[in-house]
């Protein structure tokens, strides 16, 4: 069972909540309202933590588990916020055969989070991504807009230090 409880403290604002409540009010009587409500909620908060899902459950009467089931089914929804620095490791074919899987694992271990999650201090979030078109530099990862190529597992520490 994946541990999907966010470890990052929820920092939702009253403005965000007012926005969400308005979205729910507009859509809740529509058939199949849950997906569009979740999409809007993710636009508002950037992710869908328990606090947000509970508001949706309370206001629509849809059981929390049903909402959680939908959120964990679709890759477009995230239970975790994006960090100050978003690390994306390319797991496309070329990078993967050059060892990006090991780099990805090393990052999970160093940061103490699984892919898709965010460190408790909100600094780093980690994702796997598809080919970013830099196969010549494989294996490749990006940190926000910065691109790092021709990596080995040993480079991971140095890269993280830059953003510490």
């Amino acid at each position, binding site marked *: *069972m*994946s541990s*999907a409880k966010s470890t990052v403290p929820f920092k939702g604002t009253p403005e965000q909540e007012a926005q969400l409540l308005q979205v729910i009010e507009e859509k809740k009587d529509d058939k199949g309202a849950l997906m569009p409500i979740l999409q809007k909620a993710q636009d508002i908060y950037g992710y869908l933590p328990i606090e947000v899902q509970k508001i949706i459950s309370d206001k629509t009467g849809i*059981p929390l588990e049903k909402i959680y089931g939908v959120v964990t089914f679709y890759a477009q929804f995230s239970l975790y916020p994006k960090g100050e620095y978003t690390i994306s490791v390319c797991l496309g074919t070329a990078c993967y055969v050059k060892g990006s899987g090991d780099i990805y694992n090393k990052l999970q271990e160093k940061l103490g989070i699984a892919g898709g999650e965010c460190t408790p201090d909100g600094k780093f979030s980690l994702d796997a991504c598809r080919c970013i078109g830099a196969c010549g530099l494989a294996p490749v990862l990006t940190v926000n807009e910065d691109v790092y190529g021709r990596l080995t597992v040993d480079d991971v520490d140095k890269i993280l230090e830059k953003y510490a």
Partner: protein
Amino acid sequence: MADITVKINGVELSVPKGTTVLEAAHIAGIEIPTLCYMKEINEIGACRICVTEVNEGRGFRLVAACVYPCSDKMEIRTSSPRVIESRKKTLELILSDHDRKCLSCVRSGHCELQKLCKDYGVEDAAKYDGVKNEFEVDNSAAHMYRDNNKCILCRRCVAVCAKTQGIGVIGANERGFKTYIGSAFDMGLGETSCVSCGQCIAVCPVGAIAEKDFTKPVLEAIADPEKTVLVQTAPAVRAGLAECFGNPIGTNAEGKMAAALRRLGFDKVFDTDFAADLTIMEEANELVERIQNGGVLPMITSCSPGWIKFCEHYYPELLPHLSSCKSPQQMFGATAKTYYAEKMGLDPKNIVMVSIMPCTAKKFEIGRDDQNAAGVPDVDYALTTRELGRMIERAGINFNALPEEKFDDPLGISTGAAVIFGATGGVMEAALRTAYNTLTGKTLVDIPQVRGTEGIKELAVDELGVKVKVASGLSNAREILDSIKNGTCDAQFIEIMACPGGCVNGGGQPQVPMGIRNFVDIRAERAKVLYDLDKSMPVRQSHENPAIKQVYEEFFGKPGSHKAHEILHTSYVKRSVN
């Protein structure tokens, strides 16, 4: 609806339009296997075990028989080599990610998956072995555990929780191979607003969910010479227990059950029915008081601990409507550890009160606050009908060959009004019998308007000037509760049972394969046992039970007395929704 003609395995059959292939085959005497399908509750055609060949003029192809409608002149092949091969492959694929510890599984011998593997000749259970999911067992709830390593993702439990009970605390999380049944944010079931009804267990085809088994400490207590071990059996248990020993649904097991309990070594074999009569005395008194003193109305029954927990989580604002009466199980334990202990010169600390219940929520109920009249828990162990079945089997008792025996006195004496508590409407009927007699001096025993398995029933009793309603299944309860909330409910007294059909269909009753449940109404078959028993009893009104008269004379004084309140009544708490 107009009939159409189909040909099943070469034999012509006329069926109404809209009939599914599965139903048509059933009419033709052929049972197509199912795993996910539950009539009107889980019609998702997902498990593919029911695939059957049909030809609608474009050649034979495999369809899911459970949801595929028959068309005119359709040809159906239910057991062609292609059909058999496909079903077998589906089973092999299910087994590839299934914890195959059949020898130590609670469902061994009556597992729907195990039976299908035998029926379809699965020779190599490891044929498609590869990556396997590994799940932790969820032991967080008081009444049950979930072992997802045995789950086959049929989603029957999910459907019964969300649709039948209107709760939805379990569902499918993640997707594809990683899919598992769980709760929001991976909360343990004990952290959610699960009401403990156990309907999920009743419909599980395998051993992925089961009640927590307390047979071992019960046997240890029986073996302890210091302890006096008393047992009480709920009304509905006698309508289900015989199924554990190969008897047809709807077999009355009362006499053999009493005999079996004696042979298991219980010191006294008592009957929860006694406490059901006691409940009527207290509840009727409470209702009259509320009507006369302008108390909160409608009053709602409090016998069903699944219903109580539901109300606490989902309708806490309606808690003042609940009768303050403890459930019969708890009234029994409380009376045994006070009145009976005093009478027999026993220290309540040395009494071990065991109850046999058709219910899993009873396991939660015994741990509630304000359920310890003698300073110790009213009830120590609540076992399900299934657990009793296992104890009897383990003890080597030949159940079907047992003589019919009676319960012990005085807490084994009861009436016809008590035994019908196990069916939806039974508590209401029992209460009306006593109320009618008290208020009019006349006798009314058979009240067919509150019998039957409909989800919601109502009756205006003009001579008493009251209107009553009866609901079973929590999604039906919601309808009534919402009407109370919005002020449109015109009843004064309401009976609610968590399980559809009442306790006879409780979450602790013997599991009936869905292939039978889809075509036989087990609620009605089992309820008939109770109504027949009622009819055969010399006393059919609770207030005429001689043992009840005696307990009030010797101990409680009168219904609603201070002492009765201290011992037989309880309180409720608001709980959150998760």
